[in-house]
């Protein structure tokens, strides 16, 4: 790790200011992605701005037609929250299966969405549920937010403050783990919402999380068997040591079916 200056502002406004005045400032939330990167010397920011002291960024509340989760809420809190379990059990289930206990205690929803790892779990929930990402500047619809792997609509220095999830009629998440990292080799989030059925896939796409049209079409009446029959093209899917594009395509329809069957 290279040396850096450390800041711990007490408000979002101060954090924005600190990022803006640093020559190469970087926000740190749970540090579960950023710290390993620094330790491997793959990044060497001049300043780290820790969001941990900003009370406004924490917590989970029921709001309007759904729930709102503060950006600095760790995965373990989402997993065990009665509000989340009551409104969107699939989201609590998803959070409970991110990484390990230590990662869930530190890693945050804001960090996960800002990072947009192509194999991360939260992006599937955000896109699958049609969430809204709130920042210090604006609100961004999930459909506009994810812009390819490790790439989002966030501008330089823009800070996620919270995520709003509308409550679906039913939703389910099935994660098939990459055996070594236990990130998602393929993760499929299905949601039956007022606006129709939404499906989001993580882990498989070359461009990160995406909505497979074929599966959404097949799932018009939210039947598990129909999902399994959906043919997903493998052309834009990842191929690596742990799974070919064809395998991932196959898993998408299998997992979609299982997610529908398990949906609550």
């Amino acid at each position: 790790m290279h040396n850096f200056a450390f800041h711990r502002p007490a408000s979002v406004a101060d954090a924005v200011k600190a990022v803006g005045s640093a020559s190469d400032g970087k926000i740190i939330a749970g540090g579960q992605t950023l710290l390993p990167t620094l330790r491997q010397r793959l990044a060497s920011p001049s300043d780290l701005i820790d969001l941990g002291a900003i009370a406004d960024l924490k917590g989970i509340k029921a709001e309007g037609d759904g729930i709102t989760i503060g950006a600095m809420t760790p995965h373990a809190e989402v997993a065990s929250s009665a509000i989340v379990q009551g409104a969107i059990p699939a989201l609590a289930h998803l959070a409970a299966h991110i990484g390990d206990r230590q990662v869930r205690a530190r890693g945050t929803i804001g960090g996960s969405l800002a990072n947009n790892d192509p194999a991360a779990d939260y992006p599937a929930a955000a896109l699958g549920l049609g969430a809204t990402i709130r920042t210090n500047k604006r609100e961004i619809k999930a459909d506009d937010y994810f812009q390819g792997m490790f790439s989002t609509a966030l501008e330089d220095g823009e800070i996620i403050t919270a995520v709003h999830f509308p409550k679906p009629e039913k939703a389910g998440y099935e994660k098939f783990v990459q055996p070594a990292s236990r990130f998602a080799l393929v993760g499929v989030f299905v949601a039956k919402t007022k606006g129709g059925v939404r499906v989001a896939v993580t882990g498989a796409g070359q461009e990160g999380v995406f909505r497979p049209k074929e599966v959404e079409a097949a799932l018009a009446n939210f039947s598990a068997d129909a999902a399994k029959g959906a043919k997903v093209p493998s052309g834009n899917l990842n191929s690596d040591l742990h799974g070919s594009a064809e395998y991932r395509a196959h898993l998408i329809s299998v997992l979609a079916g299982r997610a529908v069957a398990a949906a609550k």
Partner: protein
Amino acid sequence: MAADSGTATGIGASPKRKEDFRFLTGRGTYTDDINRPGQTYAYILRSPHAHAEIVKIDTAKAKGMPGVAAIFTGADYDKGGVPCGWQIHSKDGSPMIEPPHFPLCKDRVRHVGDQVALVIANSIAEARDAAEEIDVTYKELPAIVSTGAADKAGAAQVWPDAKNNTCFDWHIGDKAAVDAAFAKAHHVTKLDLINQRLAPNAMEPRAAVGDYDRATGEYTLYTTSQNPHVIRLLMGAFVLQIPEHKLRVVAPDVGGGFGSKIFHYSEEALVTWASEKVRRPVKWTSDRSEAFLSDAQGRDHVSHAELALDKDGKFIALRVNTIANMGAYLSTFAPCVPTYLSATLLAGVYTTPVIYAEVKAVFTNTVAVDAYRGAGRPETTYLLERLVEKAARETGIDRVELRRRNFIPKTAFPYQTPVALQYDSGDYEATLDLALKMGGWADFENRRAEAQKRGKLRGIGISTYIEACGIAPSAVVGSLGARAGLYECGQVRVHPTGSVTVFTGTHSHGQGHETTFAQLVSDTLGVPFESVEVSHGDTNKIPFGMGTYGSRSLAVGGSAIVKAMDKIIAKAKRIAAHLMEASVADIDFKNGEFTVKGTDKKVSFGQVALTAYVPHNYPITELEPGLEETAFYDPLNFTYPGGTHICEVEIDPETGVTQVVNFTAVDDIGRVINPMIVEGQVHGGVVQGIGQALLENCAYDQETGQLLTGSYMDYTMPRADDVPSIKVATHSTMCTHNPLGSKGVGEVGAIGSPPAVINAVLDALRPVGVTDISMPATPHKVWQAIQSAGKAKAAE
């Protein structure tokens, strides 16, 4: 030796480990915990390329960085290369090719991670900062990483002297007799197999601290080693030319080795050498990423095997051809792994009368390969047990029955195999029968049918194995190319008050020797378990030793302790005879008491010990005072643990996920000192075996030679939820040639299990037409196998 005493700490009891408090509460002292006054930190700049010429190294800027004490490159290094401890001769009698292995590369790098420069600074951060400023100009060269392709025309050449990348081309057995037997075979089963490369992944990464004392001219090396005396010998005599009396090697608490910490690594030499240069202690600690690029890796064999059977299913001949990957350099024991630790086991538990094996060792642009838990024996067991299984399927003979038909009967011991070894004891029917019973073999089909209702494919697999360990009879291994003796040393020091310190040349890095050796001594001398301390790991404390590997510690090291105790008891009897005014011949020793035959006279062991050190009433003209004895024990043969492993798996055909649902291990390991520790050793070995069968793989990019599985993001270690609760039992026949009767248990789990798992996977997949799969049988691979079998069927 006392018989099983049945007490809570005696031989055969399972007291909790003496080590538990220290290790479970984080109070161990590992190499990285050792800090010497004025210590510096070393960072090793490693090659990013698999194969390249070093055109130029510019360290000028780096040397001016804050905190830098020194930077060394290959041009600065003025001592010897790291030697290989075993010499193999090729078929034509020529010695193997032994390329030089300097701790810092002189002009060429030969694998990703090869050592280019040593940076020494006041802190590790400063050393790393400086390393980033070293400017190395490389000229990249084509690389070869594939085991099977290394000796083919057009492959990149790793060493100029090793034509076709061949290190040696060795063979064993009677080729003519095998060819003749094949000519009249009723059936021949053929199989191509890959035993994939693994990374050992000890929990504690390697570390080394070199400390040169200018006042005395002495060097001390603290290192993560399984055998400090071997390191002293190799590094002192061959690399740095430091005589033994000026070199102390300390291997303190070591967090796992699995073989990877046997070898003398060049980092050990570098910190010792550099400590003299910079006149300060130098510490190097590997991180996990570095471990993947610098710890010797394991396995990596490509084999073709053929088994000839007669019409009754008796094995009449076996023919094997193996290519073994050595990596870019020859690590300490690398050449003996695919040869004398592997091909000599090809008889397995079977009466196959003639066997011929050819083993070609090749160099590639990869990390060196050497012994990893089981070393050679897992490769052979996997080959044999897959081959026998396939023969059973092809001939239609039940797979258990086929094995039984070919077992060496228990009446046939000692049994001379056609490939050099002579097995001393065993009872393969007994371990098989017990395992079949414990593993529920008879009613398996019910479980298969029940699983089918849930949409799952269930399978059961078996492996009946033998291994050779308790390494090793020195004269035998010497004639086979070993450049060292492989005896062991034990010293027993009885203190004046009767407590005992045992000094052993073996090394404990997770095996619990402090407990089992104390049980052995306590039971034999009749002193309390709490009064026995076991010391190891320091060449200044321990007279001599060859360390711990090859499941040798109890069989060889324990036997040395027994021999030392024999001497203690003999001397103590003379002291007791003097005290009780009796003849030595009339003295009996039992449960810590010396008695005179036919009288009620007795003295305790403690009283004798005190007398030895306070010799007021003492036969001083005949006996020296004191009660301390040293013994060296050189075994007469290897020991031969064996047994049966049964695995049951369930496969989800939709995703290819394999879950191990049952595992039974019944092992014959000779006399057991502590059943709990034995169970733990088997558990650990089986988990590593399941890891090899289903999860682990070192994958290199075929073009660039980059290690694709260089972190836990891609290298799959077994986790708790990958393994079931393992059923373990022992059914022992005694080793006939050591005083304990013990055979060794450290490696059996990793040796017996992989073929049991793969045979189970193939049994599960038979109904869908799959007949072959390679390790690791990952979900992706299993799914692909099901798809291709389905396509093949559809095409019919």
